[in-house]
């Protein structure tokens, strides 16, 4: 029996998926989050001054292949990852979800986000920007092939670091 690939992708499907992803990240369910990734998944945070840069020629903030993502998660779950111990509390708001492109089983989607980050009792940090995901259709849901995070601030500045998964 073959599984039929859905031919029409709806915004509601994409929204459901992005909300689920956000919940897993905010809840630090990072192993479950990893299950959403394809085996060749990549995670990029381009530098604030070159949002459209290529990580092979431009210094990024984060440019992880699948193995590096695995290692990043091992690191940030470790109590010796001082930047994330105690863990940041984050809360993501996702909106303005748009399907930019559908090419066979690949769906490129854009969304706006605000990610509020709290650590200890210090100031609130607001990461504001856009997501661009390349999703691969998988059954009636998706897996993430590429995840690109654009930070709107002109520089990281008071946001400090991106030691958690943004």
């Amino acid at each position: 029996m073959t599984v039929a690939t859905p031919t029409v992708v709806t915004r509601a499907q994409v929204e459901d998926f992005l909300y689920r992803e956000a919940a897993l990240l905010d809840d630090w369910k990072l192993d479950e989050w990893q299950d959403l990734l394809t085996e060749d998944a990549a995670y990029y945070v381009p530098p604030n001054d070159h949002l459209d840069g290529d990580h092979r020629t431009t210094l990024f903030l984060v440019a992880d292949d699948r193995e590096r993502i695995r290692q990043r998660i091992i690191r940030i779950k470790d109590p010796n990852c001082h930047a994330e111990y105690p863990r940041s509390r984050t809360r993501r708001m996702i909106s303005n979800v748009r399907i930019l492109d559908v090419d066979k089983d690949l769906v490129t989607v854009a969304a706006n986000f605000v990610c509020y980050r709290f650590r200890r009792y210090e100031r609130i940090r607001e990461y504001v920007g856009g997501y661009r995901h390349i999703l691969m259709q998988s059954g009636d849901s998706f897996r993430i092939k590429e995840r690109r995070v654009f930070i709107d601030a002109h520089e990281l500045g008071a946001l400090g670091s991106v030691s958690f998964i943004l």
Partner: protein
Amino acid sequence: MRHRDRIDRVSDGLISFDACAITKATAMSARSYIIDDRERKTFLLDREVLVSEDILRQEMSRIFGRCWIYVGHASELKKPGDFRSRKVAGRPVIFCRDQKGEIHCLFNTCRHRGAIVCTQREGNVRRFMCIYHGWTYGNDGNLIRVPGDDAYAEDFDKVAYGLRRPARFEQYRDFWFMSLNRDIEPLYDYLGRAKDYIDLVTDQSPSGRMEIIAGVQEYDVAANWKLMVENSVDDYHLPSTHSTWLNFMANSGVKIEPPKEEGLVLPTKGLAIELGNGNFTTDNINFRGRPVAKWIPLYGEPAKAEIAEIRKELVSRLGPERATRVADTNRNLVIFPNLVINDGSSVTVRTFYPEGAGKMHVTAWALGPVEEGESARARRLDAFLTFYGPGGFATPDDVEALELVQQGLANWAEDRWSEMSRGMGKETEQLNSDEHHLRIFWRRWNELMGAPV
């Protein structure tokens, strides 16, 4: 009265400490912020220097107003008309290349009423026009247009109204520095033996030319700027602060053996070396792989052949001994007061400025040879991110450590002195994991701040 209080407080905290040394350090007319007792092999730093806004104000004139301060790298200005605007030591400046190819550092302040004249961070222009009244300057700083200039007296001289510039502006191997101090020694002399260590970095390039790679990392750290100087060269902290990085390296097939030699805290030996004028470096036998040119499994099998080629080129150009220096050592260099060039997992150029006593703003770039091929450049950038930067596997934990120091220093008045004597008890060479190089910084800083010699 103040001195008396201070001595009491110190004595409370350090019962065994010789009150004589403290009296000597504090009872003179000018103040010393360190207790540097070579006889007792003790070095203490007054924590007030990390929290005081008064001291910060003095630093702005006595340190940043007096030293050579890094502005930028010539490679950031490839073509005539290219410019970068940035803040250097709190001063907004334009770092630019004029139509003739000359590089300038101009104060980004209109001579008319003081507005910023260049509002873009980077670009290419022939002139900078102030949006307020339209005074317009060439990219060499000359005033070329004043709207309605017939309303000025006849002896109004446009030539006298070019953009102001720092008293001195000089370069070494494309690293440009400014100084607000007209009487400072030439940059060449100021750098002293640090030049050899800049050469070791630029020797990675067959033509001796390095370039700043696109993509700047700018972030704040809620800590005093001098803590970043310490952190950039302090190899003592690596095992405790960066255990997750060591773990990542191990997971990536880079076996890092515990130290075998007595006295080492790191797997290989490294030295701390004084270079004159408050400049210093670490000089370590590499154990972590280097894009130029020491392969580690992290780079992947296909990279092996290319790294062997890079190494072959180094040996044929520089000879085996120098090639080993370039490829098999890593060095974290500090040019006093606030330029750091780390030639480690990759090369990073980093500078930082105070924004208040308890906050700094860091700017960091990656540096690579101009002729580097696509795959080698990609590997260099990837290696950078394994350790450095706000999303790296090590820097965020450094930031955390520095911020915890700053938070702890809220108790400075009751717990006044930082301990920095590590290595002083030894007759032998000073290691990267000792605190010799930190003491070099603090002695120079203390001297410039006007402490009695």
